[in-house]
């Protein structure tokens, strides 16, 4: 007669494989990464086990619940005020002492906890042995060992979750005892707030927090259960004493449960780090790694792109013939084939191959643990711009999707530094712009060379474009941090997680699958309606000119000031919902006057652009404007959600646009001047 639905929260430090455990149990494919803050908001999933339905909640990875970053607040408030039925605390077997801090804090909120010691395979490699029984005895809760990447320990974990929820297995968690003074004060508060709390344990936890007198936590307490700040008597030393007691307890438990056969267990990591972060090789290797990834992407994407586009061309022709044969109206055939299908197929064939190559490679770097090293290497430059090295990580997320990058900025603790990272995130080219950049580079700058020099040049140019976007980010950050977002510098702590051998096969399979789903979904969600609308604009005539024509010619004069033309600017404006459709709009607008030409090959695309007056300078300007213009609508909405401010959203919209237009203006006019002087 028991319940058959339970909620289980997953908590843990960043980089402990929490998302892998979570995905393993739910079958969900949440992207996992070896850096802080991959799970930026609570992710939900479902698990069925022995006819019981579990709702699994993946909390953001944090080191603590008490030091006040945005994601810590999310995790802590969830545990305190949403009261899940139980918590799975995932810890890294190679770094248990550090992880126990969080586990002990969670145990102060609830005793319904299972500790999952993950990455046991990595610990074995480093000859670290963990006495799971002793750990369980010391903590008073069940402990399971696992290597989630290979699935080891997952069925035991399920069984333990079942036992704890359905069979209500007991736990024996000792309270951490603080100094008599703290205990006495905490007890006084406890008496006052007990009635308002869901359990004695939560009441004690909150009493201790009120003693620490953390402003932000006081606010969320007042909001959630109406406990006012006056309940606490506070002394400055309490905070230290409480934190120290937890750390010391963690140390004691660690020493009794973990042993090292080899004290030099992280020697290999240090050797790798000395190469990847040293003064002479750190930054060159970083550039080289990205250059190679770009090169593989460009070379590898070429053939599948051609193959896909000729496949789609046949499909399109087949649909056209079939529709015509069954007597469909010519207009409707054109809407479907020239509008919807053409745009959608273009998006898929141009976007999918490079992204399905780039992301697996990038994920391998990520899995290996390299990305935090980028933040480490570049922090000095971010510091000079008045921002945080972790901004490098949010920029990396921006490669995938700027909206994700913006949400990811929650890993930055200081509100002002976080705002700067949010506002500048769109300066990094996302998934929807990357392939367009590659296309432009390939047709205008490296087409004249032969293989492999053409692809090497393309990769180098793409690398320069990315470096340019990094410089722009740093520059704009500097501008913001020295004007509207002037702030006191916040402290900088960045964990460099242990290196892990990436599971290359698994990463490739998962990441390719993720990208295919992502790109196809975007194609359907965005390209289908966009294709329809643009076709209508291009084919509804008023007088002897189409709506699209009216629009493009009305802004043509303005656009030419910046080295662009009306069609290009119109494409960017109409492409506001998604950057993927900017190029298809240009193509459709250019071809709408003439009979439709096929634009399947790069040479033809080049011909189309040049007959419409493009020069190399135009191409550079378009490239720059692709890099620096207003973020897409999804990103803008996300910025608003994250900042709750129209002002900052507008700024995030306007600043990159001004930057892009200014750069285009300078480039086109300076080159005009040079041509005039030279000619």
């Amino acid at each position, binding site marked *: 007669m028991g319940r058959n639905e339970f909620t289980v929260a997953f908590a843990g430090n960043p980089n402990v494989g929490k998302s892998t455990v979570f995905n393993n149990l739910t079958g969900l494919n949440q992207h996992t990464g070896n850096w802080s803050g991959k799970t930026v908001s609570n992710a939900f999933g479902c698990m069925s086990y022995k006819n019981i339905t579990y709702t699994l909640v993946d909390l953001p990875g944090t080191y603590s619940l008490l030091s006040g970053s945005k994601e810590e607040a999310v995790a802590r408030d969830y545990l305190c005020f949403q009261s899940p039925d139980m918590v799975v605390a995932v810890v890294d077997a*190679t770094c248990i002492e550090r992880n126990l801090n969080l586990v002990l804090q969670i145990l102060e909120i609830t005793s319904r906890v299972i500790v999952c010691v993950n990455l046991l395979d990595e610990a074995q490699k480093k000859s670290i042995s963990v006495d799971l029984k002793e750990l369980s005895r010391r903590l008073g809760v069940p402990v399971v060992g696992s290597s989630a990447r290979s699935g080891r320990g997952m069925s035991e974990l399920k069984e333990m979750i079942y036992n704890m929820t359905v069979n209500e297995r007991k736990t024996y968690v000792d309270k951490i005892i603080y100094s008599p003074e703290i205990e006495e004060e905490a007890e006084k508060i406890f008496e006052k707030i007990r009635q308002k709390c869901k359990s004695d344990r939560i009441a004690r936890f909150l009493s201790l927090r009120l003693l620490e007198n953390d402003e932000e936590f006081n606010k969320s307490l007042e909001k959630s259960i109406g406990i006012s700040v006056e309940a606490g008597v506070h002394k400055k030393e309490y905070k230290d004493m409480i934190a120290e007691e937890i750390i010391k307890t963690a140390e004691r438990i660690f020493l009794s449960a973990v042993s090292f056969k080899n004290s030099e267990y992280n020697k290999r990591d240090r050797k790798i780090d000395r190469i990847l972060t040293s003064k002479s090789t750190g930054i060159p290797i970083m550039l080289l790694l990205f250059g190679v990834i770009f090169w593989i992407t460009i070379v590898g994407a070429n053939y599948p792109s051609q193959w896909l586009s000729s496949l789609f061309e046949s499909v399109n022709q087949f649909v056209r013939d079939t529709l015509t044969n069954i007597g469909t109206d010519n207009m409707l055939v054109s809407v479907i084939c020239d509008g919807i299908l053409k745009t959608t197929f273009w998006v898929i064939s141009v976007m999918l191959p490079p992204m399905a190559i780039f992301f697996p490679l990038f994920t391998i770097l990520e899995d290996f643990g390299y990305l935090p090293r980028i933040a480490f290497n570049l922090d000095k430059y971010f510091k000079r711009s008045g921002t945080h090295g972790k901004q490098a990580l949010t920029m990396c997320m921006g490669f995938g999707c700027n909206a994700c990058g913006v949400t990811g900025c929650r890993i930055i603790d200081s509100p002002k530094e976080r705002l700067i990272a949010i506002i500048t995130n769109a300066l990094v080219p996302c998934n929807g712009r990357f392939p367009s950049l590659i296309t432009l580079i390939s047709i205008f700058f490296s087409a004249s060379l032969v293989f492999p020099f053409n692809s090497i040049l393309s990769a180098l140019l793409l690398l320069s474009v990315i470096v340019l976007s990094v410089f722009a980010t740093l520059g704009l950050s500097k501008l913001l941090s020295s004007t509207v977002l002037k702030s006191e510098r916040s402290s900088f702590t960045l964990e460099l997680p242990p290196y892990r051998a990436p599971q290359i096969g698994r990463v490739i399979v998962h990441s390719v699958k993720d990208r295919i789903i992502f790109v196809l979904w975007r194609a359907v969600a965005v390209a289908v309606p966009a294709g329809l609308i643009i076709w209508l604009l291009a084919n509804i005539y008023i007088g002897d000119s189409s709506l699209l024509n009216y629009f493009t010619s009305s802004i043509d004069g303005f656009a030419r000031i910046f080295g662009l033309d009306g069609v290009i600017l119109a494409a960017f404006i109409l492409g506001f919902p998604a950057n993927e459709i900017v190029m298809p709009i240009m193509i459709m607008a250019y071809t709408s006057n003439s009979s439709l030409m096929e634009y399947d090959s790069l040479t033809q695309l080049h011909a189309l652009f040049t007959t419409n007056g493009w020069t190399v300078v135009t191409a550079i300007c378009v490239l720059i404007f692709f890099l620096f213009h207003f973020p897409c609508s999804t990103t803008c909405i996300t910025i608003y959600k994250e900042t709750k401010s129209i002002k900052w959203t507008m700024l995030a919209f306007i600043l990159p646009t001004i930057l892009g237009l200014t750069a285009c203006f300078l480039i086109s006019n300076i080159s005009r001047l040079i041509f005039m002087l030279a000619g």
Partner: protein
Amino acid sequence: MMYLDKELSLLNSLNIGEKCVVRGLTSEGKERRRMLDLGLIRNTTVEAALRSPSGDPVAYYIRGALIALRSEDAAKVQVSAL
């Protein structure tokens, strides 16, 4: 007062490969809490492990984890020789 015989210095003066023991923190508020959460409490052994290409930040081994701190933050950690 048992540490008076050992000279206090600051964590950012540590050379790579050197170890020291934490004696106290001079930071306040949230920053202090974050340092404490890293495990930087009294008597904790810390080793400077890596210097970034530009010299700052430096990564330290703190309780088994490798944590990068900027020089001015490390300067808020008082340490003494082992």
